[in-house]
């Protein structure tokens, strides 16, 4: 009786050990050839933290404003300009200032030298014409126009005494994926130095600073007093998209083991 129970435990432990070691091996193998990237989008207004409803900011035209909603699509992430060009698979992310976890994007890249990080600000045209999508592209995320099919690529809402709209609201729902007023913008951010070397088995955090003040300026002056509401495709939506495409810069790249 005792003997047979012993046999049972020996077998059981053996099986468990085999099972877990196979997992362990896989993990080590991955770490041997890949670096882990944690891409963090740090939204701010001219260096100030964004606190919804509460904090009042001032744009370069002296117009004060508060923010109640801030979302934008970051898609098709790649790391070009080095020894290789790596693309993130199924790369669709909705950055939402109200959800901290949405501001962090994690993926693995092969060890090597990379020159820059590139992404599309918005959702590629194919996914605007292909019917019902899911996850980041789920229409339930409230970033989808139902009356004129297409994604809202970026959205900011808030209040400003410069707005003469109801409750001093301002609202930017920026979209349009085709024709002369497409708001799709590619963003290319060079790494500091010629290239950055990513060592396998190490973790890297790339912090991207996004200054929301840029929505109103460079290259197009958009005053809240003149354009408090931009919620359909057209010239002003395109102008804003050319502004906010320039709001990003790489703040820092830090690395650590594990």
């Amino acid at each position: 009786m005792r003997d047979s129970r012993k046999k049972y435990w020996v077998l059981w432990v053996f099986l468990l050990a085999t099972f877990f070691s196979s997992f362990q091996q896989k993990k080590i193998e991955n770490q041997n050839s890949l670096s882990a990237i944690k891409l963090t989008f740090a939204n701010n207004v001219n260096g100030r933290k964004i606190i919804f409803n509460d904090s009042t900011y001032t744009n370069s035209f002296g117009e004060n404003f508060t923010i109640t909603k801030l979302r934008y699509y970051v898609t098709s992430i790649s790391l070009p300009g080095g020894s290789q060009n790596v693309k993130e698979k199924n790369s669709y992310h909705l950055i939402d200032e109200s959800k901290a976890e949405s501001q962090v994007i994690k993926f693995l890249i092969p060890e090597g030298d990379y020159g820059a990080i590139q992404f599309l600000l918005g959702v590629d045209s194919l996914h605007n014409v292909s019917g019902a999508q899911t996850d980041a592209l789920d229409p339930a995320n409230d970033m989808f126009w139902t009356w004129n099919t297409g994604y809202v690529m970026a959205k900011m809402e808030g209040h400003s005494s410069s707005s003469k709209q109801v409750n001093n609201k301002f609202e930017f729902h920026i979209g349009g994926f085709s024709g002369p007023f497409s708001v799709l913008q590619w963003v290319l951010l060079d790494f500091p130095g010629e290239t950055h070397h990513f060592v396998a088995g190490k973790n890297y955090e790339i912090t991207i600073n996004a200054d929301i003040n840029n929505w109103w300026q460079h290259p197009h002056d958009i005053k809240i007093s003149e354009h408090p509401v931009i919620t359909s495709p057209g010239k002003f939506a395109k102008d804003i998209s050319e502004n906010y495409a320039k709001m990003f810069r790489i703040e820092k790249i830090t690395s650590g083991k594990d």
Partner: protein
Amino acid sequence: MKVSISILIIFFIGSFTLLLDAGKRNKQDFSLPYHPTPLQLKIPAGWPKPPVNIFANNPLTEEGFQLGRKLFYDGRLSKDGNFACASCHQQFAAFATYDHDLSHGFHDQFTTRNAPPLFNLAWATAFHWDGGVNHIEVQALSPMTAPNEMAENVDSVLKKIRRDTSYRRMFKAAFGSNVINSQRMLKALAQFAGSLVSSDSKYDKVKRGEDKFNPTEQRGYELFKLRCNTCHKEPLFTDQSFRNNGLTRNNFLKDDGRMRITGNPGDSLKFKVPSLRNVSVTYPYMHDGRLYSLANVIDHYNNGIQMSATLDSSLRKGIPFTTAEKNDLIYFLHTLKDTSFFNDKRFSQP
């Protein structure tokens, strides 16, 4: 004892294998294998192939169709439970709203346009009177979320239907697992709506050699081919284009039609050419339902055309009809009624 230990070991080895296997497959498939019954969209003889296969990424199955059918007739897709898709799209009116210029929505509100009938949507290249919706799968989002129609939001609809065990069962039968999300809901609705094919009117029977027009209908058909067929192109009775057919702009609705979508002033007052199939039951007519009878419509083309910059070039002089011709044409238009479509039990409330 030894036997039972062996059984245990076999059990453990078995479960490991299963676990490993499941890990390899994607999460959705981690359930019993499912075998939906594939369906084929029937393309009536002599009809063109649909311009795109709307089921390319949404394989048509009996289970998907039946799920879509249940959703189509379910008031829970609306905020107060009163407005199923079927409340404005009634089968006996070829899935238009019978005898209403504008339909009714949440809180006693009017819609802003006449509900179009639903059939032969697999051949449509854009949806809504202004073509603002570019894919059948996302069309349902529009009425579902419009404050004057179903007035709901997607998350709330999903919450309601997730509570219903029959939906959990049907989603699993249709898609292989009981995950209920917006994509699956919309794809199922598209399977139902895209399957609504109307192709069995008297006109179709005549074309197939199974019936004959009477002399009045025949004269009407000849007139139709001469004067209407450019825009209302056979066999779908629409060329799917957007045109300004000379209606005045309604000062209350201020509806600029296609221009609202394209932003192009050249598209002002253009609306999609509707199919004339089942036209005798889809009255009132036009994008805002302003014309109540087929006679009114023919009168409009005869002497009611309003000149404007974007008026369709084919209508600059109107389309003249004598009283006798008008009568003949109306007789022909009645042959486009497909009674078997209204009575098809597959499309009725489950």
